[in-house]
């Protein structure tokens, strides 16, 4: 059977998925959580609690700050100790809600978790309207858990005139090292499929495709078993290639349609959702539980573990004592970002903690030899060496003509470069400048209409 994949570009980094097959461990609830109000793309949430307030597990502590935003809930019961700034992993200040639990709170939480029961039966769920499902998803504060953290309810509400005809579940997990989605599918296939059905109904489509890369045979088998009994959903094994988990690449790989430059992915009729998001949707609708924790992979080079971590857990408590490391990457090795401080909480988008020294250093930068490997690797069909040079020389007009705004910052070019040039670093600056100029132009042109 021919495996699907996207046509142009792509690289195949060493998979290094040593955490695959390790069951998901529940990390005990921390005694104190720090919940930043900006855990998603869009407007930051607004805190609705005050210092001294008592909160229960699952209570909303911050309201969405707009339509493109998400609510934030507390994973522990306790008292709000302060609303102050905490640090993002990169060291920038962000407003956060600090909650501390006492002995009674911890007992109450343990009981809540032990006695968790569905609040809706299959029949009750089957009579929900699409609008109701979307509002339940919105209430649960669900965002894309693949890492981009785009609010899910926004994606399910296409702009007027656009109609979805397929929901693609992104379970390719193309980043090396990470295996949290893999384990989630092996352990909770039935729940995920229920979540996928909810997403399909919310989007008003009859067709769902779960795309899984071929290096996860156990997950494919587990999902196929469940899907066999369900109409309208299929499991599609994919060829292993990075960045297949990119939204545009996945759409092209699965349904063969290219997202037009500058258009939303919905223009192809596809809505892409991460597999962990589907699982969170199941929990929100069936169990009435907002998003309180997430599964992530902890990888230190020697062994890998998959952990279910409450949001707001501090990073330093998750790294076992005595672990030697040079660098901490949050996310995968390709798109993840280095943490420069340990005093930072886990947020919705963190899919991994990498301590592997293999990824600690970049190679020595050498001059570009014009080999064109970056161009072959670019999944968007761009010329990374050119965009990078234009950005470095601040020729943003020409960079815009060369479609720098289409770059998805996947880093395939930097990975492929034999001279270790920081190609994507420069492209990022140029892209930010060009996007800002495009937005400014659009804003200037808008009142004239």
């Amino acid at each position: 059977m021919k495996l699907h994949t996207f046509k142009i570009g792509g690289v195949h980094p060493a998979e290094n998925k040593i955490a695959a097959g390790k069951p998901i461990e529940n990390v005990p609830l921390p005694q104190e959580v720090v919940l930043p109000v900006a855990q998603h793309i869009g407007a930051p949430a607004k805190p609705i609690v005050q210092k001294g307030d008592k909160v229960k597990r699952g209570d909303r502590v911050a309201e969405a700050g707009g339509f493109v935003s998400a609510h934030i809930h507390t994973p522990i019961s306790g008292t709000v100790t302060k609303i102050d700034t905490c640090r993002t992993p990169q060291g920038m200040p962000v407003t956060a809600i600090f909650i501390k639990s006492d002995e009674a709170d911890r007992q109450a939480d343990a009981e809540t978790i032990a006695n968790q029961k569905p609040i809706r039966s299959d029949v009750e769920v089957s009579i929900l309207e699409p609008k109701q499902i979307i509002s339940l998803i919105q209430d649960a504060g669900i965002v894309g858990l693949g890492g981009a953290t785009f609010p899910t309810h926004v994606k399910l509400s296409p702009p007027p005139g656009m109609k979805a005809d397929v929901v693609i579940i992104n379970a390719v997990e193309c980043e090396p090292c990470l295996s949290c989605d893999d384990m989630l599918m092996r352990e909770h296939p039935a729940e995920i499929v229920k979540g996928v059905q909810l997403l399909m109904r919310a989007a008003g489509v009859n067709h769902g495709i779960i795309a899984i890369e071929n290096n996860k045979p156990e997950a494919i088998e587990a999902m196929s078993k469940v899907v066999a009994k369900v109409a309208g959903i299929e499991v599609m094994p994919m060829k292993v290639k990075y960045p297949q988990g990119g939204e545009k690449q996945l759409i092209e790989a699965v349904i063969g349609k290219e997202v037009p430059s500058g258009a939303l992915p919905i223009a192809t009729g596809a809505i892409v959702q991460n597999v962990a998001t589907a699982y969170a949707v199941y929990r929100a609708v069936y169990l009435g539980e907002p998003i309180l924790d997430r599964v992530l992979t902890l990888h230190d080079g020697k062994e890998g573990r998959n952990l279910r971590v409450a949001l707001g857990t501090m990073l330093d408590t998750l790294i076992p004592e005595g672990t030697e490391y040079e660098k901490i990457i949050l996310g995968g090795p390709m798109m993840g970002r280095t943490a420069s401080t340990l005093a930072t909480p886990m947020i919705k988008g963190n899919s991994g903690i990498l301590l592997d020294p293999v990824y600690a250093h970049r190679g020595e930068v050498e001059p570009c030899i014009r080999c064109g490997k970056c161009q072959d690797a670019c999944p968007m069909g761009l010329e990374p060496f050119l965009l990078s040079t234009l950005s470095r020389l601040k020729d943003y007009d020409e960079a815009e003509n060369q479609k720098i705004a289409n770059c998805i910052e996947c880093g395939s070019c930097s990975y492929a470069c034999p001279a270790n040039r920081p190609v994507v670093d420069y492209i990022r600056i140029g892209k930010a400048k060009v996007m800002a100029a495009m937005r400014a132009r659009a804003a200037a042109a808008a009142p004239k209409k």
Partner: protein
Amino acid sequence: MSVIVSSIIVLGAIGIIGALLLYVVAQRFQVKEDPRIDQVEALLPGANCGGCGRSGCRDFAVACVTSPSLDGLSCPASGAVIMKQIGEIVGLAAAETKPKIAVIKCNGTCDLRPPLARFEGAPTCAVLAQLGSGESACPNGCLGCGDCVEACPYGAMRMNRETGLPEVIEDKCVGCGACVKACPRMIIELRPKGPRGMRVYVACSNKEKGALAMKACKVACIGCSKCEKVCTHDAITIQSFLSYIDPEKCKLCKKCVEVCPTHAIHAVNFPVKKVAPAPAAAPAPAPAATTEA
């Protein structure tokens, strides 16, 4: 023979017709340009630094000649003498401007602001600023990659490798503001040069609460407002835990310099002590992680 004669006649005729055509076109479509524009441009430095707010020296010369007054038009690189000469050429009075100089509002040297991480990516401040707080814990301080040095068209900035901070070479800086635009952290400010170069300014940009600022850097402004209280000229305001001295109101009394507990306020070019003494660099224990970026 006749071939040579006829060719000379034909080619000569073509040449004369072409010359007539060029003459007519040149007369017809002549663009009359004020000769003063060239005169003004000749006086300008020609660095096209953009300090005047125009797209280049030629554009500035055109603006000088065409606008009804010279108010708001000044070339920071040329100074008052040249502006006066330009005024004489165009027959207008040049507006009086105070010479300005770039001031770096960060004094977080390597020992005073312990680095928490090491950056190995593309060595420009723009990349580092996109990533986060940089190598130290201060989210507002200098990133030390030298985008400002690269941007300076007059060679008036250099990077001090020991402190990790850029320095302004006072004689060369004309106050064009290229570095101000290049700095992604916005820590460079154009301030009046002051009488005999004397000026007082807050050498910090940290907008965090005092405790956090102190944790990140030993010489950070902590917003204690001691300087605000001691100032008798109403020159000091404090916004988001950061003090600012208004150069128009400041009378250079240096009272604020003495009371500042973190030595964040600098007084430069004063006769007795030329540079404010840097506080003793205490060996600080690095807070938080010592990871590498």
